């Protein structure tokens, strides 16, 4: 379908780019969510128009078709990350995946021990553990991590104690763009009998990820960050571990039998999928996976590496003293994420300082130039606070972005500076 990796060709598959073109919109909020190609939209519409029905229990024609589509979606998605279908659990999003993990593992471990996370985690890999520790003896510990280089095994090793039962880290930081170096981590943790969880919400969409290479026990990601609908995501787990973990939610589909006073759980993956699942979501995610496989995940990664290199080069050329950005400078270890602030270095006359509020940056970027940036703590408050700020503005790239988009970004940064820092 798509031979050369050409973002302008790729755009043709995304109906929303007609509007973007019409309204002069440059969409740079892909770490928050991505756009949907026709291939994904059509897979969903086609399901609605031909096979829509509930899965698992229907022995009539369209029930079988829906079940078949659902199962084949699971197989396809499992294959994409090198996993097995029974280890591939459909959830709403990476957040639910991590909540499921935190709740079920806490019970499996008898509510004891320590969970280690990094300071660069998304709230989704912090708050579930805080909730778990509010109802059990599990303790959350946050290890320091660097803002200018990837996390390595040696960094984790320092913080492990005899009590550590789980290490849960992000593969790619959604704020700094850091691609953590997780080789060795899985193997070493397993030698210590520690469970290894990877938040892959920002890696699976952007680079080749294989659960066997990572040697992780659990891995979480969201469909909507990789061209698929919202409302669908995956918790991948090693079957041997999932078998031991108690169910999370109870209800239809996840049981073998229900009696007045107890139930028996279904086998994995159904054990963890209570109630009617997001069927079209799974089908849409599978179509998204096909789209990405077709492009080649190596090509996706190389494209984004090119964009972030270009971004860092443009930033340097701008030589704008008020522009501060975060994260590693080496594109080899940096995803397509660029968080920054605009701040007059020498304070100023306004009583509240001369920092341009990131909300104003993204509001103005939109109104002046149609450049769509996110602003805030990006659900990574501990990391944001450690940078000494309350918020940042963030641009994040995907397959349909170009160097031209990066030029627009720096154009508008220049204009905002002139407008706000007088």
């Amino acid at each position: 379908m798509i031979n050369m990796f050409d973002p302008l060709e790729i755009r043709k598959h995304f109906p929303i780019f007609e509007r973007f073109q019409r309204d002069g919109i440059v969409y740079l909020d892909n770490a928050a969510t991505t756009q949907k190609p026709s291939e994904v939209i059509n897979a969903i519409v086609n399901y609605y128009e031909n096979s829509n029905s509930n899965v698992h229990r229907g022995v009539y024609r369209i029930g079988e078709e829906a079940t078949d589509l659902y199962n084949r979606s699971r197989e396809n998605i499992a294959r994409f990350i090198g996993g097995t279908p029974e280890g591939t659990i459909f959830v709403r999003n990476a957040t639910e995946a991590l909540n499921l993990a935190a709740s079920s593992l806490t019970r499996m471990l008898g509510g004891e021990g320590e969970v280690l996370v990094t300071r660069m985690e998304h709230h989704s890999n912090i708050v579930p553990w805080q909730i778990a520790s509010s109802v059990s003896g599990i303790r959350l510990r946050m290890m320091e991590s660097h803002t200018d280089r990837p996390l390595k095994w040696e960094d984790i090793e320092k913080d492990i104690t005899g009590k550590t039962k789980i290490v849960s880290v992000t593969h790619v930081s959604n704020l700094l763009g850091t691609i953590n170096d997780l080789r060795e981590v899985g193997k070493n943790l397993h030698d210590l009998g520690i469970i290894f969880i990877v938040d892959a919400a920002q890696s699976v969409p952007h680079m080749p990820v294989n659960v066997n290479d990572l040697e992780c026990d659990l891995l979480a990601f969201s469909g909507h960050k990789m061209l698929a609908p919202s409302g669908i995501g995956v918790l991948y787990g090693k079957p041997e571990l999932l078998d031991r973990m108690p169910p999370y939610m109870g209800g239809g589909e996840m049981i073998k039998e229900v009696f007045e006073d107890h139930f028996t759980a279904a086998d994995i993956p159904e054990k963890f999928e209570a109630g009617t699942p997001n069927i079209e979501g799974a089908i849409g995610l599978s179509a998204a996976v096909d789209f990405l496989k077709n492009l080649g995940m190596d090509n996706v990664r190389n494209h984004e590496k090119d964009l972030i290199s270009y971004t860092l080069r443009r930033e340097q050329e701008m030589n704008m003293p008020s522009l501060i950005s975060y994260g590693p400078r080496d594109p080899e270890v940096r995803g397509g994420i660029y968080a920054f602030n605009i701040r007059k270095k020498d304070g100023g006359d306004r009583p509240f300082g001369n920092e341009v509020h990131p909300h104003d940056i993204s509001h103005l970027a939109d109104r002046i130039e149609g450049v769509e940036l996110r602003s805030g703590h990006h659900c990574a408050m501990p990391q944001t606070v450690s940078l000494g700020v309350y918020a940042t503005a963030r641009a994040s790239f995907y397959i349909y972005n170009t160097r031209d988009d990066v030029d627009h970004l720096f154009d508008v940064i220049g204009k905002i500076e002139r407008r706000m820092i007088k």
Partner: protein
Amino acid sequence: MSDDIIYSAIIDEHYEEPRNFGKIEDPDEDIMETNPTCGDTIAMYLRLGDGKIREIKYVARGCLISVASASILSERVSGKDVSEVLKMSKNDILSYLGLDLGPAREKCALLSYDALIKMLRKYEKEAKK
């Protein structure tokens, strides 16, 4: 293959008169399997010796497909070597039925096969010790 459970003579024949239906007292292996989709249940009993299935019986309460497939399976494996039976694939079983089944009904058809394979694996494992 035909989709016609409506007129399948072979299915009907086995459903009306399932072969090897019943219990074995003091079996070498026995098992109880349930299909969570529909609550179908099969209890299966084996007498084994010299690496062969000497006798196979089962008590099933289930549908056309699961009863007929248990009956057909029991005929096919009676007297066979355990190692040979373990080589049979799911698709072999499905092809014996001569029906093109959807995923939900495949579970019905494979209930007896799953029960049998579990017992034989256990038997082999114990034999190796």
